[in-house]
């Protein structure tokens, strides 16, 4: 497996680029790359030459997360002002604006079937689930207090939820918090199942393997990447190599490699068989806030990985 740089766009945004997601291909157009930035805009880019398709405004303060519906028709973006904006990808028409005060919004993700949008609720220690047809709040998954919480952290009464990830079958939801714990929810019963421990610093990104539905990857500020068996509550392994925070994780569609973006300005490709970084890309010169593999299928061949950074640039790589 290998990454090869295809194209980089300098100054793709007017300020730090904080988030990226792929919008699935539709009949009318190919897959698009969606990016969100501190400059309060969401932009769409057409691969492979990263042509700017559209710039959409409508957020105040920085855009912290974007997510695309599996159909490729609608997308969601969340910003620091705690609003989630749902919009039509092709017309940029706002479909809904979601808010659930007092919880702020962080990472977003649609479930694989596209029926539910999960929103990490920050300080409310919960994940909000929204119905994608009515745009009503279906459920609030609250993280219970950790039993016998350690004396080490006095303030750990509440867990600040930063990241979410759906399992490929849509039956489980994992969320990562600032204190380093990962919580697993059973979606059918809307119930908390258990915690996964091992990190002690914010878990900013989570990703399930597309081929092994129990395998969950987590990236944390402790610079480590953990592999959990999310059902068996076991830490299957840990990988180290980044010099600073791991900000983003994505699993390759073939499930044999993962890509990570880090504060150490690099994008790394990890071979899961060797459990080691096999490639380090240094095209960015500031924190790499997001990495995203293009979902498989569609007319366009070849794997693609996109990365975005505080240096305002976007990079696209060929993954093979």
């Amino acid at each position, binding site marked *: 497996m290998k990454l090869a740089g295809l194209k980089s766009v300098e100054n793709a945004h007017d300020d*730090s680029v904080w988030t990226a997601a792929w919008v699935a291909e539709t009949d009318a157009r190919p897959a698009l790359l969606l990016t969100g930035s*501190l400059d309060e805009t969401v932009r769409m880019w057409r691969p492979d030459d990263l042509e700017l398709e559209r710039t959409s405004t409508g957020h*105040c*303060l*920085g855009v*912290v997360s974007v997510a695309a519906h599996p159909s490729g028709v609608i997308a969601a973006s969340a910003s*620091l*002002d*705690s609003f989630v904006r749902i919009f039509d990808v092709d017309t940029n028409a706002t479909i809904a604006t979601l808010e659930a*005060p*007092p919880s*702020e919004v962080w990472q977003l993700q649609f479930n694989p079937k596209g029926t539910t949008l999960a929103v990490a609720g*920050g*300080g*409310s220690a919960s994940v909000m689930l929204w119905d994608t047809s009515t745009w009503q709040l279906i459920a609030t998954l609250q993280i219970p207090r950790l039993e016998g919480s*350690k*004396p*080490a952290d*006095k303030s750990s009464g*509440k867990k*600040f939820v*930063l990241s979410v990830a759906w399992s490929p079958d849509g039956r489980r939801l994992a969320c990562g918090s*600032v204190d*380093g714990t990962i919580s697993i929810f059973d979606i059918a019963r809307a119930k908390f199942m258990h*915690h*996964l*421990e*091992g*990190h*002690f*610093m*914010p878990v900013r990104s989570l990703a399930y393997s597309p081929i092994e539905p129990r395998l969950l990857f987590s990236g944390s*500020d*402790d*610079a*480590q990447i953990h592999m*959990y*068996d999310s059902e*068996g*509550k*076991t*830490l*299957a*392994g*840990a990988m*180290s*190599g*980044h*010099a*600073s*925070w791991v900000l983003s994780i994505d699993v390759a569609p073939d499930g044999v490699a993962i890509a990570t973006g880090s*504060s*150490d*300005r690099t994008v790394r490709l990890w071979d899961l068989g*060797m*459990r*080691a970084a096999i490639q380090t890309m240094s095209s960015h010169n*500031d*924190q790499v806030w997001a990495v995203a593999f293009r979902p498989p299928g569609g007319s366009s061949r070849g794997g693609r990985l996109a990365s975005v950074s*505080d240096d305002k640039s976007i990079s696209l790589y060929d993954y093979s």
Partner: protein
Amino acid sequence: MAYVYIPVHNSQEEVRVALDQLPRDATDILDILKAEQAPLDLWLTIAREYFKQGKVDQFRQILEEGSSPEIDEYYADVRYERIAILNALGAYYSYLGKIETKQREKEEHFILATQYYNKASRIDMHEPSTWVGKGQLLLAKGEVEQAFAAFKIVLDGDWDNVPALLGQACVEFNRGRYLDSLELYKRALRVHPECPAAVRLGIGLCRYKLGQLEKARQAFQRVLQLDSENIEALVALAVMDMHANEAFGIRKGIEKMHRAFEIYPYSAMALNYLANHFFFTGQHFLVEQLTETALAVTNHGPTKSHSYYNLARSYHSKGDYEKAGLYYMASVKEINKPHEFVFPYYGLGQVQLKLGDLRSSLSNFEKVLEVYPDNCETLKVLGHIYVQLGQYEKGQEFMRKAIKVDPRDAQAFLDLGELLISSDPTAALDAFKTAHSLLKKGGQEVPVDMLNNIGVIHFERGEFELAEQSLKEAVGEGVWISFIEGKIKPKAIDAAESVHLYRDVRIFTELEEDNVPLELPWNKVTALFNLARLLEQIHKTEPASLLYRLIVYKYPDYVDAYLRLAAIAKAQNNIQLSIELVNDALKVNNKCVNALSMLGDLELKNDDWVKAKETFRAAEATDDKDSYSTLSLGNWNYFAAMRNERKYPKLEATHLEKAKELYTKVLVQHNSNLYGANGAGVVLAEKGQFDISRDIFTQVQEAASGSIFIQMPDVWINLAHVYFAQGNFSLAVKMYQNCLRKFYYNTDSHIHLYLARTHYEAEQWQECKKTLLRAIHLSPSNYVLRFDAGVTMQKYSTSILQKEKAKRTADEVRSAVAELKNAIQIFSQLSAAANLHFHGFDEKKIATHLEYCKHLLDAARIHCEDAQREEEQIRQRQELARQVALAEDARRKAEEQRKRQLEKRKLDDELKRVEQQEEHFKRVKEQWKRNGPKRRERSDIDEDGGYNEKRRRGGKRRKASKSRYEVEETGNDLVDDQEYLEDEDANVNYREFAANETQEQDGVTEENAQDLLAAAGLEDSDVDEPSSTAKRRPNWSESDDDVGEQQPESSLVRENPAERHESDGELKENAERPYGDDDMDEEE
């Protein structure tokens, strides 16, 4: 049976004397000899017989009688025999002198010998045998040149004089001219083929010296054929066998030595050699016995020296340095000049070095160097001694000399490298590399220590790949490689247990159960530790932790490994585990300063103030030299001063004073301690002495930028704080930004906060807001940042709305309104969250801000409408202006059109006229034909008509255009008026707004005067109302706290140097080892 016949005087009879039955008392024979007046040669024969039988006294008695004055008188004409008797006596005394060891008696013997020879010479100057004797005597006395002259006299007379030839050969041998010596021996042999075996011995020795070993061996063997008990030949052959340096040869040699020993147990040479042999076989008891015997049997200086040397060596190798020193000394005493036998000096030097007597050792080694100026070992030892004496330059000089002498001596390069490690790592590295390649080329094993040192130097220079290469080579093959390469993966463990991951050694027990070898030789532990440290440095934390755990598993007393594991856990914020690991280390050594200091830091992180203080105290108590704990205590006091939230100013002052005192103490102990200086700078800054503290920080910053192990972001931050405090905002910003980028990968939200505060003070609101948003993104759960962002946006809006009307644009006003809305969103969220106790803010405070923002927003709306209207007007005006321009354009176009038409018409007219004229002309022509003079008048009239028409038309047009122009002008006037009116309107509006505002404010003041004032105060930093300071407190006090908080980081950072010291220590240990092992290298 041999007889001598003494002729009876005056008769034909003879007395038969059986030579083997000579009477015990020589007087009997003497009586006979005297009575019968026997010829002198008989005297000599009998004396010689006595000598052969070992009856030396009788021999001397007869000869002394035979050389008495009476005999001289009586046998005055028998010259030759008299000379022979004298010569025999001379030779005898020469021999005595030669073997005598006591100096005085030796000389006496030589004097006697000289007397006899001189007497002989007086009888006949030219008797060759006398000269030969004299020559021998001189040789025995060591006067080689004179001996040469004596023998030469004989040989000049008779070229074939065998004794003289032998003597001369001996002279030449002693002079080192072995070829000449050999020639002489050969000649002697040719002249006298029957001569004793000793001659062949001489040949053998010459051959040996000339390096013709085979021929020498033949010669010695020939000697043994002739005389199977010739000790010298036996010993010589044995020595040769031994030098062949093969096991077989040595065994043969030793057998010969044994035989020699059995034949004659008192040959010192054989004894020494045997002792030498047993020294190498390690049978020290035999060595001592043999050498003691050798010492007892010989008085020969060099041999004794050799024996003492053997004895000393034996003790030396047994480690009894005192005794060895004494014997070396004895050995040295037997030597006149170091050139004769230099080894004991070397041994003595070594022993003295071992016993710490560097100066004596130095002088002995220098003596060795006089003899062998190019001896590598000696040069190296001298280098080391100079280094130990603190004369590094000289030490290195000797080392370099050693290398120059033998550029292929890996050991020398290795030693040089070790010398240079602390002073010049680059040169050390070069030396190590050379040693490395030499050893590799020679197929020798490369020492682990050296590879370790190479690795560490690379490490220190930041060349991690090279360092990894060397360290991997140092540790070699082993289970660790599988760990590093990820071939052995730790099994999955329960996530809940993963909390204790770095204490878990189950992986090793499991591996052992699977029969995977886990051997870890002790000499590789240091290298393995350094390798783990390197992996840690390049962020391969997992394999690093496995290696540390392996070390701990195999060597549970290896404190540093625990501490590194604790440091890894701490870096991952797993404080509980880190504390457990440090406690593991303390179980091994509860006085370990590093562990205690680390524990204190951890307790501080856990907010366990009292415990932390106790721990630091304990650390300080263990060792006064370790300034780290003092520093920590200083930091502790500093935090304590900052932490009390200024409730007790007295306490604060005490703590601050104490902190200063402790920092100063650190600086007194180590005047180049960066951290102490940094701390002192902080205290000074805290007291407002910014200039001094800035100087301090600048210096510390410069000093800290040299090594990869010193990471001092604190000093950058402190420097930035000082710039900030002095109002130099742009520099402060730059400093904060550099610090963020250089040390934190831009991830530290605290520094972002400092940066934001600087922007805030510099009134760069947008930068401030962006910075705060970034900080929120980095540290989402820090609600203070949100609050600050809200305040910033509020401030921004206010500043815009308060701007003079003319200086602001509608866009600005709009953005101010947008920011106000954002601020309201933020504040209302905070206020909502406050109910849920997400954060520890005062609800009221947020409510105040919220209220103020809302008010401002209401007010701003008017501003906004106002601005919009204004903009609308501007737009209208622009529209009008556009229309005017359009009209003008149209007019111009019309004019142009008209002009064009006019032109056309003119052209048409012209054409017509031309036509007319032509027609007219035709007509005129025709008329001319009829009546010529009328032509001119008619044309004039026509022209006039044309002109008139033209003028009329032009006038009309002008009029039309003029009227239009007037209309436009009035239009313009109207617009102007309108505008003026609107302006007035706007003014009125503004006045109203201002009134409104005051009214509103008044209204609010009535309602909640206090709060609003507070809010207003917050807005205007220049207004120094008490509430404003109260409001600004959150920012300030927080940042002050942060100034404090960076202190623990300074101590965190300090761990690295501390631990590097550890491994430095180990490096030094390696370096100190050099001369333990090679004691015996120089000896054959």
